[in-house]
């Protein structure tokens, strides 16, 4: 198993009971898991999420996650 730390932004934290914004979430996934697998595990759909930032870079759904990765998830937004 690999463990990744996830930080949720916007109103996503409200969807996870007892989410602690300081510490984020720690999620365990199978080795070779991708960003898409992580979103699945969190129950997030394409409609909910926008940018997934992986160690400071913007990630694609097929990008593989490594053990200890830090992931930030933002919601889709439109500029105004």
């Amino acid at each position, binding site marked *: 198993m690999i463990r990744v730390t996830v930080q949720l*932004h*916007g*109103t996503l934290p409200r969807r996870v009971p007892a989410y602690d*914004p300081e510490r984020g979430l720690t999620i365990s996934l199978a080795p070779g898991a991708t960003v898409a697998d992580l979103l699945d595990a969190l129950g997030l759909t*394409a*409609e*909910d999420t*926008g*940018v997934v*930032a992986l160690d*400071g*870079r*913007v990630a*694609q*759904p097929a990008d593989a996650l490594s053990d200890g990765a830090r992931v*930030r998830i*933002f*919601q*889709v*937004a*439109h*500029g*105004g």
Partner: protein
Amino acid sequence: MQLIRVNMTDQSIHVEDMPSAYEGLGGRGLTSVMIDAEVPPRCDPLGPENKLILAPGLLSGTPLVNTGRISIGAKSPLTGGIKESNSGGKIATSLAKLGIAAVVVEGQAPAGALWRLVIDDQGKAALQQASDDKGARTYALCAKLLEQFGPKYTIACIGPAGELQLGSASIQTTDVDDRPCRAAARGGLGAVMGAKGLKAVVVATQGKASDTIADPEGFKEAAKAIAQGLQKNPFTGQVLPNLGTAGILGGVNAMGAFPSYNATKGVFDGWEKISGEALAERLQQRGGKTKHMGCSQCIIHCSNEYVDDKGKYVTSSLEYETLWSMGGMIGVDDLDAIARLDFLCDDIGLDTMNTGVALAVAMDAGHKPFGDGAAAIAMVEEVARGTDFGRILGSGPVAVGKHFNHHRVPAVKGQGIAAYDPRAMQGLGVTYATSTMGADHTAGNLLGLYMAGALDPLAAEGQADASRGAQVTMAALDCIGLCILAGGAVASSKGREAMLRLLGAKFGREMAPDALTEMGVRILKAEKNFNTRAGLSATDDRLPRFFHEEPLPPHNKTFLVSDDDLDKVYNFQ
């Protein structure tokens, strides 16, 4: 619907029915088509030939949600081209309820004279001497005028920057709670109003002469579909009411597109201190408002009320663009300093974006260190005092760049960029370069496409077409008077269909499926026509050189879209 023409030269007022040439136009459609038809394109923007036009949207004053938006148009002293600057508050709905399609301010009062225009609840307009208000800041002015006229009035006004006729001068409108904190900020239209000798437009909110709706039932039903769409959408239904537009900040920063330290970095180190999440937390702790209705008819409530550590009102609404221009762009990560700068700009009547970019250029040139919030506050105060440096700063980033002989000036057609770097969001670069308005994110923002993964923000491909599409849609929405933040409601085919049904029900005729595109194209063509006749050419549709030459970390990209592609953006079929 009627046009009220106010001649400042002889203080005469004429009311006329909407000429047939302008039928079917409102908001930006009306201001732009009218300016193209009536304003000599080579005129001095601060002279008597220019016209300042205030027009509510086509559907302002109807039961449709989020239509409390006003377009203010003129030839811009900042860009030298046509300008539409959009604001909220109550004035659009109020004018529409009085049956007024536009207020057209013409001519010029003798130098030193100052007037206010008052439109009462019967729609009758009169000019009143306002020499007592000379030099007044907007908060004090509006408090005084609303005390005098009573709470059933709303105001559009200028502050000291407008009276000084500076290129970054805004026109401030009062919000739902009667504070002059909404702004038609861009393009120096406050300077045009100041040059006319007009300090304020005071409008009754209780008019009963709204334009008729041909099919009220059909209208109601389609309006309901739009409102439901906005409530269901996670961005307009959850993010904006809870975090405001500041909710965008984390995502844009994560995409490396948050122009920081005068656009030398795409990620701001202190972003977590000024993000939407940090702002909401601060306001919750201090008893401010994270959710606030800024404009009439709004169901999104993206606005907020920032308070100090004693719970006292500082400003409303602290928005994403200001958190950037007075935050990351000048290296400031202190929300209290940013909120103070936001208030000062509203009070002096200044565009927070153009002023922030101007400050960033001054800091980049070594005038003051990045991150020095107190120095930024002192510099903005100089604008109100009208010192030599204050006048340069208030004239915008290009004036500041010239003053310091500094090359890195992030502006197009004289107007400072917005909070999306064109090297990390290439399509925003296309919009900045080609928009008839100068660097204007609201003219065609592609953030939604990038965040949804529908378009690669870093590649040149596809950006010109996407920008053209967004520019056409935005022009149509600005004509209708729909808030840009509610624009998502017409992004889907179902939403577009509902909007066509609304227009059809309003005018009592079926709208063609491409009616919105046609509307947008008509407006953009009029604007382009004006700009060409004003002397703007393809060389003005370019980003500053440094965007092509200096890679932006962390992606280390330059602006890649070719000049050929830029020149095709306004080739409409």
